C-alpha cells in the first residue's frame, strides 16, 4: 500500500538538557514524497531529520521508519541506517581516502559487496553526479561543490530508500550551489523520498510536494510550496519569508 507512510513521527519530544528542542512533532511522509523543511536557525529542523537515522535520540513519542520503530535496539538502528542516506552541510568526506574509496567503503563494509562490484556501483553514481573523472583524487583536491556531489554519490551507493539533506548548499560558494541542486532535482525526478532542510526557495518551489515551516521546535505550518510562499498563514512564516526573500 503506497498510503502507509514510510516515515512517521508521533508526538515526538526531545530536549538538549533543559532546552526543549522538538515539541510534539507529528509528521507523516509518504513514499516518494519530497519535503522541504525551513525555518529560522535553532528551530530544530536539523535535529528533526537527524532523528530519522538516529544521529540524535528522541526522548518521547515514537518514530517509525519503513515499519521499523527507532529504539535503543542496535539491530533496528543498523537496519534503518541502511535505508536512510544523509548528506551534510560540511560534506564530511573521509579525507584520507580517494573519492572512489569514499564510495566503496560503505558498500564493502556494510553491504558486504566485493570490492570490484562496489567499484562498479561507485563509478555509475560518480558518473551520475558528473564527477567520474575525479575518482582517484583526494577530497581535499576538489572544490566544495564537487565534494558535496561526491557526498551525495556516497550516500546513493548504499541504495537508500530515503535521503536526508541537511543544509547541503549552505557552506558552498554561490557559483557552486547550482551544480549541487541540479543533482538533487535529478534525484527528485526519479522518485526518491527526500527530506531537505534548506533555504533555497527556488528549489523548494520546483521540487517539493510539501513545505514544512518550523520555529522553536514546532511545526508551525505545512503547505504546498506555492501556497506557502505566496500566502503564508502564520505571522512567523510571513516574517521568515520576508527575511529570506529580502535580498532577491
Amino acid at each position: 500500500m503506497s498510503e502507509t507512510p514510510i516515515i512517521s513521527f508521533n508526538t515526538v519530544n526531545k530536549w538538549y538538557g533543559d532546552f526543549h528542542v522538538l515539541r510534539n512533532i507529528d509528521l507523516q511522509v509518504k513514499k516518494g514524497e519530497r519535503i522541504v523543511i525551513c525555518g529560522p536557525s535553532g528551530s530544530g529542523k536539523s535535529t528533526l531529520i537527524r532523528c530519522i537515522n538516529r544521529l540524535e535520540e528522541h526522548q518521547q513519542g515514537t518514530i517509525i521508519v519503513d515499519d521499523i520503530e527507532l529504539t535503543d535496539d542496535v539491530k533496528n538502528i543498523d537496519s534503518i541506517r541502511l535505508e536512510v542516506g544523509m548528506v551534510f552541510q560540511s560534506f564530511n568526506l573521509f579525507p584520507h581516502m580517494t573519492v572512489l574509496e569514499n564510495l566503496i567503503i560503505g558498500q564493502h563494509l556494510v553491504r558486504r559487496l566485493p570490492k570490484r562490484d562496489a567499484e562498479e556501483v561507485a563509478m555509475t553514481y560518480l558518473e551520475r553526479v558528473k564527477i567520474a573523472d575525479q575518482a582517484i583524487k583526494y577530497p581535499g583536491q576538489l572544490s566544495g561543490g564537487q565534494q558535496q556531489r561526491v557526498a551525495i554519490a556516497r550516500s546513493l551507493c548504499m541504495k537508500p530508500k530515503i535521503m536526508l539533506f541537511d543544509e547541503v548548499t549552505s557552506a558552498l560558494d554561490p557559483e557552486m550551489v547550482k551544480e549541487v541542486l541540479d543533482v538533487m532535482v535529478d534525484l527528485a525526478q526519479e522518485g526518491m523520498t527526500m527530506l531537505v532542510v534548506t533555504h533555497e526557495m527556488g528549489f523548494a518551489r520546483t521540487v517539493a510536494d510539501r513545505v514544512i515551516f518550523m520555529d522553536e521546535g514546532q511545526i508551525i505550518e505545512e503547505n504546498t510550496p506555492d501556497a506557502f510562499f505566496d500566502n503564508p498563514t502564520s505571522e512567523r512564516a510571513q516574517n521568515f519569508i520576508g527575511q529570506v526573500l529580502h535580498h532577491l
Partner: protein
Amino acid sequence: MDPVNRIFHEEQPPPVRTTGLLAWSKENLFSSWFNIVISILLFWIIYQFVAFVLSWGLINAVWFGETAKACPDSSGACWAFITSRWRLFVYGLYPNDLYWRVNVVYVLAAITIASFVWSFGKSTMRIRMTMFIGFPIAAYIFLIGGFWGLKYITPENFGGLLLTLTIATSGIFGSIPLGLILMLGRTSDLKIYSKVCTVFIEFWRGVPHIVVIVMFVALLPLFVPGGGKVDIVVRAFIAFAAFNSAYMAEVFRGGLQSIPKGQFEASRAIGLSYWKMMGYIILPQAIRNSIPALVNTCISIFKETTIVLLVGFSDFLGIIHLSLETPDWLGPPHISTSGYVFAAMIYFVFTFGMSKYSKRLENRSNVDN
C-alpha cells in the same frame, strides 16, 4: 556612476631577488656598524669552538690503547677508552660466540626503521604493520631464544647499547598498542571502561618513574607471588611499557580530539559499526595527527631508559660509567670526559634521527592537506 573599463593585466613573473653569498652577508651580517661588530665577535667564538673541537677531538686525540696509561695528555680526547671496549658497550655481557644473534637483531631493527622511512606505494601500510608486529617477536626469538636450537640467554646478560635499545624498544612497541587500547577505553561511552582506563592512566602519569622502576625491579617479588620468577630485566621492560602507555594514550586522545564530529556522523550515517568506524575512518586520521607528539614521546622514552642505572642495570650510559671505574681506566679526568662525550653523541644520534623523522612526517601531512 559611469562604468569603468579597466585594462586586463597579463600575468607577470615576481621580481628577481639578488642572491649570492656576498649580497646575502652584506644584507644580513654587515648592514650596520653594530652588526659588523656582533658578526665578527660571533665568527671569533665559532672559530674558537671549532678549533677546540678539532684539536681536542681529532688532532690531539688518542685513538688506541689498552689502559689509562695510553692517554696521559689532557689536551686531547681519549678515544682509546672507547675503541678498546666497544664490544662491551655494544653487546653488554652477551656471550662472545653468539654476537651474530645480536647483529641479526640490529640489522632487523635497521630494516624496520627503513620501512618507516621509505614508502612502498599501496602496500606501505601493510609492510609497516608487519614490521611493527614482527620485529619485537623476531628480536625476542634471537636475543633470548631457548627454542629451535637457539641457546637460552638470560636478559640479565644484556647490557650497553643492547640493553638501552631493548628497553626503549619494549617501551615504544609495548606502549603504542597499549596506549591505543587505553585511549579507546577512556573515550568510550561505557562509564565503567572509561573510569577504569582513566584511573590507570592517571596512576601511571602521577607516579615518578624512578619509583615505578624500583617497585618493579626490586620490590615486585615481595608483593606479587611468583613475581621473583620473572626475569629482572623483563620486569624493567614491562615497567617501561606500562607507564609510557599512559602517555601514549593521552597522545592518541589528542589526535582523536582533532577529528571533526562530522567524520563520526558520516560514518554512522552510512551504517558503519563502532569498530569499523574507528578502524577505517577515525583512527587512521587520529594516529596520523598524533605523530609529532608520538615521536616526541618516543624520544623521551629513549632518553629515559638511563634511569635503570639507579637499580643497578648497566645500560649504555651505565656500562660506560662502570668501565671508567675499572682499575685499567682510572686516570686523569679527561678520560671520563671522553667517555661521557661519546655517550652524549650516541644518544644524540638516535634522538636527532627520530626528531628529523617527525619533522618529515609533519611536512608530508601538510602537503596532503
